[in-house]
C-alpha cells in the first residue's frame, strides 16, 4: 500500500498510484477521480511530527568529507516549514556557490517508541518515503554544525511522493538509492552501507527521547552530492519507494 497526500480542486485528498494510458503515472483520489501526476499539487505524504535527520551516516560519505566514524550518530532536527512535496520547487540563493541535494531514506514512525531494542525496532515503523534534504554549504559554520541556516531552509526538504507501508518494503537495509540531475546519474548508494542502520537509529534515538507516530527519521545520504543550479531538475529514487522530483528555482520567484 502506498498513499500520497495531494491538493486538487480546492481540497486535500489521499491518493494512490494509478497507471494511465501510455505508461504515464497517475493518481487516484479517494473519491474516485483519476488524474495525471502533473495535475495535482503533491504535499508531503504525511503531516510530520518531529523531523530528525542524520549526518555522516554512510561510510563512504564520511570519507568524502574526511571525517572519522562519528562517536555517536550525528543527529539534528528540522522544523515543519522546511518540508515540501513531490514536484515542488526549492530556492537557490543567488549568492551561494555550493548547494547540493541529499537523497535519503525517510523512516516514518508508526507508534510510540521509547527504549526500543534493535531486534524489535522495525515493528515501530509505519512506512518509508524518500527525502531530498538540500544543504547550502556556503552557510556551514562550526557551531552546531550543520546549523539551521544550512539544513532548515524554507522548502528545502522535499518528501514523497508516497508513504509506502513498511510491510511492502520489508528490509530497509538493502535498498538502492540514486539521484539524477537533468537525467544524468550523479549519486548512487545502498542503504546497506549506513553506519547506523534503521533498527540501530530507532534504538539509539528512542534511548533518550520518545518517538511518536508521525515522527520522521531522515537517515543520511551516500557519497556523490554535487552542486545544483537554477533550472535543474533533481530526481531522487529509492528502490521500491518511487521517484521524488524537485526543481531548483531562483530568488526572483520569491520576489527577492
Amino acid at each position, binding site marked *: 500500500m502506498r498513499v500520497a497526500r495531494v491538493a486538487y480542486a480546492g481540497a486535500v485528498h489521499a491518493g494512490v498510484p494509478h497507471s494511465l494510458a501510455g505508461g504515464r503515472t497517475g493518481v487516484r483520489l479517494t473519491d474516485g477521480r483519476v488524474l495525471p501526476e502533473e495535475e495535482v499539487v503533491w504535499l*508531503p505524504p504525511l*503531516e*510530520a*511530527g*518531529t523531523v*530528525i535527520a542524520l549526518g555522516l551516516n554512510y561510510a563512504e560519505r564520511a570519507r568524502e568529507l574526511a571525517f572519522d566514524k562519528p562517536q*555517536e550518530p*550525528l*543527529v*539534528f*532536527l*528540522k*522544523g*515543519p*516549514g*522546511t*518540508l515540501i512535496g513531490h514536484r515542488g520547487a526549492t530556492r537557490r540563493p543567488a549568492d551561494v556557490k555550493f548547494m547540493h541535494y541529499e537523497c535519503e531514506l525517510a523512516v516514518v514512525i508508526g507508534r510510540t517508541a*521509547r527504549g526500543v531494542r534493535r531486534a524489535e525496532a522495525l515493528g515501530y515503523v509505519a512506512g518509508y518515503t524518500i527525502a531530498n534534504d538540500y544543504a547550502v554549504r556556503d*552557510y556551514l*559554520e*562550526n*557551531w*552546531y*554544525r*550543520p*546549523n*539551521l*541556516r544550512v539544513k*532548515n*531552509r*524554507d522548502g528545502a526538504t522535499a518528501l514523497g511522493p508516497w508513504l509506502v507501508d513498511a510491510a511492502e518494503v520489508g528490509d530497509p537495509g538493502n535498498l538502492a538509492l540514486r539521484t539524477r540531475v537533468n537525467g544524468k546519474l550523479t549519486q548512487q548508494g545502498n542503504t546497506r552501507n549506513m553506519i547506523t542502520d534503521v533498527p540501530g537509529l530507532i534504538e539509539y534515538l528512542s534511548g*533518550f*527521547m*520518545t*518517538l*511518536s507516530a508521525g515522527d520522521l527519521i531522515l537517515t543520511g545520504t551516500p557519497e556523490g552530492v554535487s552542486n545544483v543550479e537554477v533550472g535543474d531538475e533533481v530526481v531522487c529514487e529509492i528502490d521500491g519507494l518511487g521517484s521524488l522530483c524537485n526543481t531548483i528555482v531562483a530568488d526572483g520567484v520569491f520576489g*527577492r
Partner: protein
Amino acid sequence: MTVISPVAVPMDVPPYRLSGSVYGALLNHRSALDALGTRVDDAPYRGAPRAPVLYIKPRNTLAVSGAPVRVPPDAPELEVGACLGLVLGRAAARLAEEEALEYVAGYLLVNDVSVPQASWYRPATSAQARDGFCPLGPRVVPRAALADPAALTLKVFVDGALRQSARCADLVRPAARLLAEVSEFMTLAAGDVLALGAAFPAPRVRAGQVVRIEADGIGCLENPFVAEAA
C-alpha cells in the same frame, strides 16, 4: 503545516496558542559568548559564529510549569537554560528589524534544560531533546502588556536560593534582530516559540531540587527535578 498542541499553556487561544515548534538561539547572551573568550578562534570552531546558532526543542521535550523534569541516570546534573521566549502571532518571513516585534503575540519563559555539553561543535540532540526537557510558560503574556522586554531580568532560583540573574538587555542579538535574521531563511508560523538565549554559567541542578524561573510581569515557571527510574 503541522499543528500540535502538546503544551496546555494557559491562554491557549489564538494568537497565543502554541504550534508546538520551539526554536532557540544558542550563545545569544553576551555572558555565554564572553565565557568562550578567545576559544572561539580555536579548533574546531575557527571563528566566532556569524549567523544565529539555532536549535530545536522537539515535541517530546515540551512541558508545563509544575511538570517534573526527569534527571537521567547517565547525567547526575542538568543545566538550566533560562530564556525569554517570543510567541509568534502570525507567519513571519523576511522581517525587517524595525517591524519584527509587530509579529510577536506575546512572551513566556522557557527552561531549555540540557545535559551539560562539552562542545558546541555538533548539535547536541541527545543532550537537549530528552523527554520533558523544555518546560515553558506559565502563560503567554500579550506583547502589549510588557512595555520593554529588554528591561526584564530573568531570575533562577534553585530550592529558593537565587542562582542566576540574567538581563535581557545583554543579548548579542536582541529580539527584533534575531527575528529578522532567522526569518531571512525560515518562515516562523503563528504559535512558534523562539527562545532568545540563556546566560552563562547555567545553574546546575540534581534530582530532588526545584527550579523556579521568574521575571517581573511574566510570572514563575517552576519545575521539580526528579530521578528517572532506571
